[in-house]
């Protein structure tokens, strides 16, 4: 077993990996950029070294600096987390060349899965079901029109090197195809340096369901159950759960077996995730393979009782999987909420800044994987994921109620978060009925925002005219002003961040006034 591991990441996932290492008696090495000196992962690690300025391209993406720290600190392995260098085959190769074990698949498997067209070619050979379309880039618009005619509109154009919705176009009719192909190709070239675009049948309102697999370096591959990831916006997952409300044991076994076949076709090792699109008739199609630990891995850990990070480290150290497929049992239900630094009043725009107050939930069935703390300044340079709140219970209904309770206890001030969004989702009838697809969240957000107060105690104060929560808010504002006068008078309750009024001229805000005058 390794004695020391370097974690080439930051935020909640770095903390998660450091915790696993400590549990296993492995020393940890953190790396950090200039703005992350006070970050939680640096505080929790055994050793920590700076790797450069705030922009990721100059720090967390610098392979040379990270490998240099590994060498200096004597780390025998590198865990890349997710994002950053986690799916970079060049980095995996550079680790191998430097004699440091990369905790993940081989560069060869990553390369094969990194390009969507090469992955489709491999899967075609392995007999894996995938969405009808081409497995190679389109040579001409005419070829595109011909294929689209054959598989039927609507079709989706996708960049082979794509991700995050870039280089993707939905095409409904033949007349749109030519210009959509041109713009997808130029966007793909700009975003990924590769203009290869292929075509596949568009699945209307699909579900996005993925299967976790684990493979050791001795030829054993197992599946660990699915995760329902249909709740997304801007092609980013927001809430995930395991198991999926629509997957029964038979469908789970079939998906699991296909996922294992996918992994074996790629000679895959370590933890990986096979993503499927599922249509309304519950047909599932291979979409892509993520060659890393996923953000949403905790829901699988809770429903299988396994620790995926421990297992990743054991596999990387050359150990055999300590269990067989027949030992894997899915038990209970887990739901994860991704707590982002985003402003719900401003179209979920990122909201970095200082966390002035943090009240965190705990109690039965609640797991919180967090990278934040009170007093921390959330930097503006990275992904806005702050923490993951996971509810676990014996069934889906109880998991929903637990999470609602925990979200009610969760409070973050100083920055905006999307906590209120989860109360909307969990309280929504379609969500509770398990009627989900990738368009679900946009439809929910298009509806008027109902008052989120379902869990608040109903005020029944025995005084005439005193009936409302507004009353309590008014009394509280006065009590704060009396008991903690450092505060409220003169502060202006505005309509959100986008507008402001003459409040800056108010006396209570000397600092702000000084600052604004300094700008003149």
């Amino acid at each position, binding site marked *: 077993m390794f004695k020391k591991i370097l974690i080439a990441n930051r935020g909640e996932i770095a903390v998660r990996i450091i915790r696993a290492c400590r549990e296993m008696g492995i020393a940890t090495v953190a790396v950090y950029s200039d703005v992350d000196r006070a970050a939680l992962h640096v505080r929790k690690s055994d050793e920590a070294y700076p790797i450069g300025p705030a922009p990721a391209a100059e720090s967390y993406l610098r392979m040379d600096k990270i490998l240099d720290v590994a060498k200096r600190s004597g780390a025998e392995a590198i865990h890349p987390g997710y994002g950053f260098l986690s799916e970079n085959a060049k980095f995996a190769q550079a680790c191998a060349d430097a004699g440091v074990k990369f905790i993940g698949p081989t560069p060869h498997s990553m390369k094969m899965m990194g390009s969507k067209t090469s992955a489709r070619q491999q899967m075609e050979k392995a007999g894996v079901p995938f969405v009808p379309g081409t497995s190679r880039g389109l040579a001409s618009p005419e070829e595109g029109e011909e294929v689209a005619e054959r598989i039927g509109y609507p079709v989706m154009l996708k960049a082979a090197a794509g991700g995050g919705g870039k280089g993707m176009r939905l095409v409904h009719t033949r007349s749109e195809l030519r210009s959509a192909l041109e713009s997808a190709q130029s966007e793909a070239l700009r975003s990924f340096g590769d203009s290869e675009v292929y075509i596949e049948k568009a699945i209307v309102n699909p579900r996005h369901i993925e299967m976790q697999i684990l493979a050791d370096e001795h030829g054993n591959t197992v599946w660990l159950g699915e995760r329902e990831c249909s709740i997304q916006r801007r092609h980013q997952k927001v809430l995930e759960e395991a198991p999926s409300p629509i997957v029964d044991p038979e469908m789970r076994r079939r998906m699991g077996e296909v996922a294992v076949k996918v992994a074996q076709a790629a000679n895959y090792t370590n933890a990986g995730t096979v993503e499927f699109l599922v249509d309304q008739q519950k047909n599932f199609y291979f979409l892509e393979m993520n060659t890393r630990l996923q953000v949403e891995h905790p829901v699988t850990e809770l429903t299988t009782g396994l620790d995926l990070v421990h297992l990743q480290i054991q596999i990387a150290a050359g150990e055999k999987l300590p269990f067989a497929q027949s030992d894997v049992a899915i038990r209970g239900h887990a739901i994860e909420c991704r707590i982002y630094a985003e402003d719900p009043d401003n179209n979920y725009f*990122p909201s*970095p800044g200082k966390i002035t107050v943090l009240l965190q939930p705990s109690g039965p069935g609640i797991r919180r994987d967090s990278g934040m703390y009170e007093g921390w300044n959330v930097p503006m340079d990275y992904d806005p994921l702050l923490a993951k709140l996971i509810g676990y219970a014996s069934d889906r209904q109880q998991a929903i109620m637990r999470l609602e309770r925990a979200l*009610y206890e969760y409070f973050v001030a100083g920055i905006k978060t999307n906590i209120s969004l989860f109360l909307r989702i969990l309280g929504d009838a379609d969500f509770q009925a398990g009627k989900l697809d990738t368009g679900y969240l946009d439809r929910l957000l298009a509806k008027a925002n109902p*008052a989120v107060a379902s869990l608040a105690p109903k005020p029944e104060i025995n005084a005439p005219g*005193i009936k409302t929560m507004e009353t309590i808010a008014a009394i509280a504002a006065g009590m704060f002003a009396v008991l903690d006068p450092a505060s409220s008078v003169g*502060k202006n309750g505005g309509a959100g961040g986008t507008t402001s*009024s*003459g409040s800056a001229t108010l006396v209570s805000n000397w600092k702000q006034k000084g600052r604004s005058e300094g700008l003149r």
Partner: protein
Amino acid sequence: MVYEIIVGGNAGDKAGGKPHRLELEKAAAGWECRLDGQPIHVDAVIPRRDVLSLLVDGHSYEIKREQTATDLHMWVGSARFAVELRDPRSLRSRQKAAGDEEGPRKILAPMPGRVVRLLVAENSDVEAGQGIVVVEAMKMQNEIKSPKKGVVKKISATPGAAVNPGDVLAIVE
């Protein structure tokens, strides 16, 4: 103590709120309070900064206070209320109350970020809701909009510059 308090709706917007008059007086136990003349006895403690435990007629409420450069909110459970609090004896509060919608309005940065570009020039006419400046944070770009129809008197934001919450980006009159 006497306060004038405007409480907005549950969605966190103070629009449409009516002013309430709140009188607070220390009693032997807790506080005697009169809200628009109605007497209510409350007990209040602050167990930690920005958290208030309020007992009203046996009912227990935990209220959280959230302050930013531009807003003051009270969270009662998971319901959020925008609140504006004035001390009627304060001259400045009275001036402010009178001049809220008139005169120059400063456009403040709502979050830390970097100015990407300007959408209007000084002295141009703008509509309420029209974008003035684009600020980027966490790889997302956000248009900061004019709170009113008027003329852009001054633009303090410079493309490429870092801004902090509360920094003045522009003034619209």
